[in-house]
């Protein structure tokens, strides 16, 4: 195993352990999206009678939103943990070893990936309990997990970048409401064509979150919709690239070691 791979592995192990040992951080990331799923499915059930609404229950339609909320929790988790490391001096301890900056960022995302997979499993379980089925079958579940991992990496990297830039856990948490607003300005509640307000439809069209929601949703309720999946994966990969890029820039400012 190369030095970088070894460093990423041990830092990921640490990140995963740390994540799993903070039930107070994990439970809301699982319970909150599931609660919101059941609440919105109950309250907005009538929307499924709208002309043009997909021929599924509103519960099945809304299930995709839980995965997006889970990804947003990944932002906070990875970033807050790193901000804590900066504040406590633990980053200085790591910086005194031959650890590379790339290993620091990638290792930090290990916990976000594990949490993302665990969350996705819980959301799927809640979906099955609520009567949902996956239109793309077992293959679709695998693709869904790949998309979830990409989103955990991408959103986690945005959190890491914010932590490296500010060194402040509260600043990282400040990203959370911004991303939630973006989520609500997407297609989480209605398909794009059924959004009645022009400006809202325009915002949802340019909002990258829309394409992630649509890709996850297509796997659950539509079947193999390749253009929608391609757009979703393109956005997810784009967020990974932007997140890692911003992290790399912020890392140079944070790690001043010679």
């Amino acid at each position, binding site marked *: 195993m190369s030095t970088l791979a070894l460093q990423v592995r041990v830092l990921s192990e*640490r990140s995963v352990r*740390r994540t799993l040992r903070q039930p107070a951080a994990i439970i809301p990331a699982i319970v909150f999206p599931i609660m919101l799923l059941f609440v919105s499915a109950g309250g907005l059930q009538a929307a499924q009678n709208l002309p043009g609404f997909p021929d599924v229950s509103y519960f099945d339609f809304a299930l995709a939103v839980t995965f997006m909320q889970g990804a947003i929790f990944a932002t906070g988790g990875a970033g807050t943990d790193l901000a804590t490391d900066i504040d*406590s*001096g633990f980053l200085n301890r790591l910086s005194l070893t031959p650890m590379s900056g790339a290993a620091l960022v990638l290792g930090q995302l290990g916990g976000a990936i594990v949490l993302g997979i665990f969350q996705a499993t819980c959301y799927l379980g809640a979906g099955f309990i609520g009567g949902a089925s996956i239109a793309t079958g077992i293959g679709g579940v695998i693709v869904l997990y790949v998309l979830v991992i990409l989103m955990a990496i991408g959103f986690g990297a945005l959190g890491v970048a914010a932590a490296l830039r500010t060194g402040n856990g509260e600043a990282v948490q400040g990203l959370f409401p911004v991303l939630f607003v973006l989520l609500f300005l997407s297609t989480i509640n209605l398909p794009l064509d059924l959004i009645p307000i022009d400006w809202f439809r325009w915002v949802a069209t340019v909002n990258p979150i829309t394409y992630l929601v649509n890709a996850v949703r297509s796997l659950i309720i539509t079947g193999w919709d390749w253009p929608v999946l391609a757009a979703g994966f393109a956005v997810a990969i784009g967020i990974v690239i932007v997140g890692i890029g911003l992290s790399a820039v912020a890392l140079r400012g944070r790690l001043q070691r*010679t």
Partner: protein
Amino acid sequence: MGAIEVRGLVREFKKGPRAVDGIDITVAEGEIYGFLGPNGAGKSTTVLMLTTLLPPTAGTATVAGFDIVKQGAEVRGAIGAALQEAALDKFLTGREHIKLQGSLHGMKGAELKRRGDDLLERVGLTDAADRKVGGYSGGMKRRLDLALALLHNPRVLFLDEPTTGLDPQSRTALWDEVARLAREDGVTVFLTTQYLEEADALANRVGIIDHGHIVIEGTPAELKASVGRSSVEIEPHDAARLGDLERTLAAFGTPLTMRGTSASIRLNEGVSDVAAIVRALDAEGIGIHQLRLREPTLDDVFLEQTGRSLEGSGDDEDAAE
């Protein structure tokens, strides 16, 4: 060449004064060098530069023979450091810290396990090694911090205020271990501290820094001898007579910092003045509640050099550190 060679080292921060302003230090192999100064004097900034975590603004320094700017990775491979506050992850156990840090240093398998077990035993944490660090006491955290700093057999050890906040028993145990490291393993130790007795008990040589400058350097004995004269501190029976006491004492030496209910002077002639002082106070009708005769301390050295007492000075200067 010394284990640490510093020449004209400077560190400036934006919108701030020079935290470190052109210091020169030489520390020999196997020496314990005490770096003494109040909060904000520049101690921690110096340590951050010497451990390669902060680039200097100007000047040069080598640690273990490597340039801190051009050979940062080599310096980091040769040093261990326990920086201010034990920086540990409260969710990991002591043994997991050892494994993480050892792996990042490229240690593995049986070598890492043997070295980790050895160090955990040496710092008295074998029984607590599998407990999460969040439940450790301050002393246990400091001892784990020291074990982690020593994991890869460093030649030079930086300890930044290692006993701050520790109870006297934990402090003494840490001093013993640091002294043993230098004596038996030949490790060079660069120790920053605010505690005079710590520098006095441990350091072969002491440098005192204030406002980014080294004001004096030498062995503790040399520094104390440079002050020379003893001091006396007297507390009057009647606190209302403190002013009279100060005026009477002024004839026998140089006034020192006040401690609220007592007056101190550095004696002009030394211990032989005491009898005359007691007679003078008796003549003035000033009763003595307590009289303490003190040999020169490192605080006296600091006072002599800066006009201020080290203990408690600089508490408002944290921003510069």
